[in-house]
């Protein structure tokens, strides 16, 4: 167990921000750290806290230093404060300040906007750990358990990263916001997490994989846009966080892919070719492809909601003031100011979904969402390749952006996955065809039995093609502490 009294904060916390000579921030972190450890300890079941987990720890930001693998107990994980190296003479890439030197301190007029963005980003990090807290109990393998905990500790580190910014640049109210990040809790009635998707529970592993694929990908897009920020410390923080976020994308994409693979393999072995022969397929102890499509529909649409209103003046302000850019801003070939440009958004007019041109500045959210959809489509294509290779006639698709939405212009209507507007009655009648029903959830839940033997996997998921850190198939990724 971490010795809280004797933590040497300047050496215990890997950092490249000169923490040992920054007494003020060090002191704030010292005060905050016990609360963080308490939060962590209360969160994850005790026997996992005591287990040795083969984790990747970042100890520096150069390629050689940020992927050190070793066994560690999670509460003793070295959560560091690591910023991507400062780029000399970095310029603000967009908005009215485009071309000016990036800010090393918070510009007064944007203080509140920046703080709010950092707090929202920070709030999602512990939120997802809270949502996933019980998954270890039903891990389909030690490999998957390790991946879960890796995602968890890195979300924890991302919280640290945001808290560091709050301490370093936002004084007293920054410290208060940092405390509130530990006070709010996913699904809580009094103090829920700030964004809806982070208050839904993650009840099973397929949900976890869908969450890491779709919802963490929203996080990736937000980090990508903050990585463009004119506030240089935020940009540098997010750039380094993106390298870790890639691991979460990996867990999601391969997790869903392996679930699909197990289904296809079992169908093939049993001589079943019809993917809709659901009862027969479920008898094999795997998740049928139509149910996987329903889970995809759910998590994809919840994640689209995270991008907010399609047309937004807040987003326009954040862009214009140089706080938040577009995906790959520096690679876009335009004036990066968007004063006269327009952008196509879909909206609902007279009961029809139509495209309209709006000022590009107000459509920043929409554009990021479009980039997200393209990014998310890639993995779906690779999943379909697995199905095709198995000779099964089935294709997973991303539903229409109007389907099952709670936020934005489409929240007002009901639409089917193809994007046809339908009545409330029809929606109620057909909902279970498109989204997981209670029975689907119960079936998936019935498969969630832990599989803790090294090299063994639950029936519904196939082993990975490559081990973590090139480890062999039967590597003991978690040495379980059996109390």
């Amino acid at each position, binding site marked *: 167990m971490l010795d809280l009294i004797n933590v040497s904060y300047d050496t215990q916390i890997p950092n490249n921000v000169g923490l040992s000579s920054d007494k003020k921030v060090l002191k704030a972190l010292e005060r905050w750290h016990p609360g963080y450890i308490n939060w962590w300890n209360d969160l994850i079941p005790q026997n996992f806290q005591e287990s040795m987990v083969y984790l990747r720890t970042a100890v520096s930001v150069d*390629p*050689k230093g940020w992927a050190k693998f070793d066994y560690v107990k999670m509460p003793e994980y070295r959560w560091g404060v690591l910023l991507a190296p400062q780029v000399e003479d970095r310029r603000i890439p967009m908005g009215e300040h485009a071309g000016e030197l990036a800010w090393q301190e918070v510009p007064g007029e944007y203080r509140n906007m920046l703080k709010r963005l950092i707090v929202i980003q920070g709030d999602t990090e512990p939120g997802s750990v809270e949502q996933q807290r019980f998954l270890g109990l039903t891990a389909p393998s030690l490999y998957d358990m390790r991946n879960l905990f890796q995602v968890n500790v890195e979300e924890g580190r991302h919280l640290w990263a945001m808290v560091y910014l709050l301490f370093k640049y936002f004084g007293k109210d920054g410290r208060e916001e940092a405390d509130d990040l530990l006070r709010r809790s996913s699904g809580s009635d009094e103090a829920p997490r700030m964004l809806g998707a982070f208050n839904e529970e993650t009840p099973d592993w397929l949900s976890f994989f869908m969450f890491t694929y779709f919802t963490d990908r929203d996080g990736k897009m937000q980090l990508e846009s903050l990585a463009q920020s004119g506030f240089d410390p935020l940009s540098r923080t997010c750039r380094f966080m*993106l390298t870790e976020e890639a691991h979460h*994308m990996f867990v999601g994409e*391969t997790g869903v892919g392996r679930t699909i693979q197990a289904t296809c393999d079992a169908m093939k072995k049993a001589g079943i070719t019809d993917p809709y022969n659901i009862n027969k397929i479920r008898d094999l102890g795997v998740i049928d492809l139509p149910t996987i499509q329903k889970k995809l529909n759910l998590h994809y649409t919840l994640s689209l909601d995270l991008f907010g209103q399609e047309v937004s003046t807040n987003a326009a302000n954040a862009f214009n003031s140089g706080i938040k850019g577009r995906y790959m801003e520096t690679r876009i070939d335009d004036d990066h100011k968007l004063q006269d440009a327009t952008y196509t958004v879909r909206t609902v007019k007279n009961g029809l979904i139509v495209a309209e041109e709006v000022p590009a500045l107000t459509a920043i959210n929409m554009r990021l969402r479009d980039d997200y959809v393209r990014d998310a489509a890639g993995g779906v294509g690779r999943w379909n390749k697995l199905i095709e290779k198995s000779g099964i006639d089935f294709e997973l698709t991303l539903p229409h952006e109007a389907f099952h939405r709670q936020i934005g212009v489409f929240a007002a209507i009901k639409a089917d996955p193809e994007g046809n507007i339908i009545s409330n009655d029809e929606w109620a009648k057909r909902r279970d065809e498109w989204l997981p029903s209670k029975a689907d959830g119960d079936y998936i839940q019935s498969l969630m039995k832990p599989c803790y033997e090294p090299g063994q996997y639950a029936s519904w998921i196939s082993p990975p*093609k*490559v081990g*973590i850190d090139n480890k062999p198939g039967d590597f003991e990724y978690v040495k379980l502490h059996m109390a």
Partner: protein
Amino acid sequence: MNKPIKQHLIDPEICIRCYTCEMTCPVEAIVHNDDNVVVDADKCNFCMDCIPVCPTGSIDEWRVVAEPYSVDEQFDWMELPEQQDLGASEADTGMEALDDAMAQLLADAHKGAGGKAKAPATAAKPSINMHTLGKPATAKVQGNYRLTNDPAHDVRHIILDFGGTPMPVLEGQSIGVIPPGTDENGNPHLPRLYSISSPRDGERPNYNNLSLTVKREEMGLCSNYVCDLKQGDEVQVTGPFGATFLMPDDPEARLLMICTGTGSAPMRAFTMRRQRTTGGKSGGMTMFFGARTEKSLPYFGPLKKVPTSLLDQHLVYSREGTKQYVQDVMREEEDKVAELLNDPKTHIYICGLRGMEEGVELAFTNIAESIGQQWTALRDAMREEGRYHVETY
């Protein structure tokens, strides 16, 4: 035909297109289109920065090719091509070097193992042949230290710094040093192979440097050149070479190391690697190290500081004291050696002058007999499992 080259590839079936490698690559050798992320063979300089940052493991793929796959070709791939049959491939056959002359030298050095050498199952993947005779790397001499106190046996510890040039080595690998000047026919001299005596993360941890252990040979063209190097001198280097005489990464593996003279170089590298990684807990290492006298035994001082729990040392002198050879002390320690021979975790390494082979083989034969094993059968089985390694010269 061109010499085959080694090409870095990404497995499109495992890659998730996160582009982390692309953002990390310092020379912009990694590019992508809507389908694939690929490495441009013309630009990749094998710096390996992309390897640890990949979340999937898809990036650690290599093929030996006569003609590199173009970027456009790779964009169209659904899966990686098989290794082409070029007669021999590093991956399939444990090819030690792509350079014929170097491969020949290593094959000769390894022939004492009695058959085709294999790397330990848990050894890290070696890089080979990054720097060739046509395109050598330049290293700067950081230090040149005398290791022995015996004028007839001048052994040097040479530290070479590679600065920004990638030279990813593993313990047990060798590099080639090109002596300046030309031979009697006016051709440049061929490189001489020297075994690296420092661990993979550098003579000094996380510095891009390595050390060599070189004995001055009378009339030796390259050894005199190397032993006379001064701090700041620049040296032309090829390599790394060698893909079998490597240490297992498994910390539980037990190492039995038998060496004489500068054959201690890889053993030093192994020991330092263990010292830096296992933190005291490991399967252990046992060493029989022979020299003429205490004063001519390289690294005598530093060895005294290595704890027995990490390295069980038997230093053997042929010209002083009881005047023994390594095989004599192996016999004295028969029980210890027999116990090691019986353990499937044991890996044996023999390195030194060719003359030592016969005596050591005989000692093994006798000790194996004492536990009812036939030595050649046991040796062949161990070699097949990547647990028996010989490098003599």
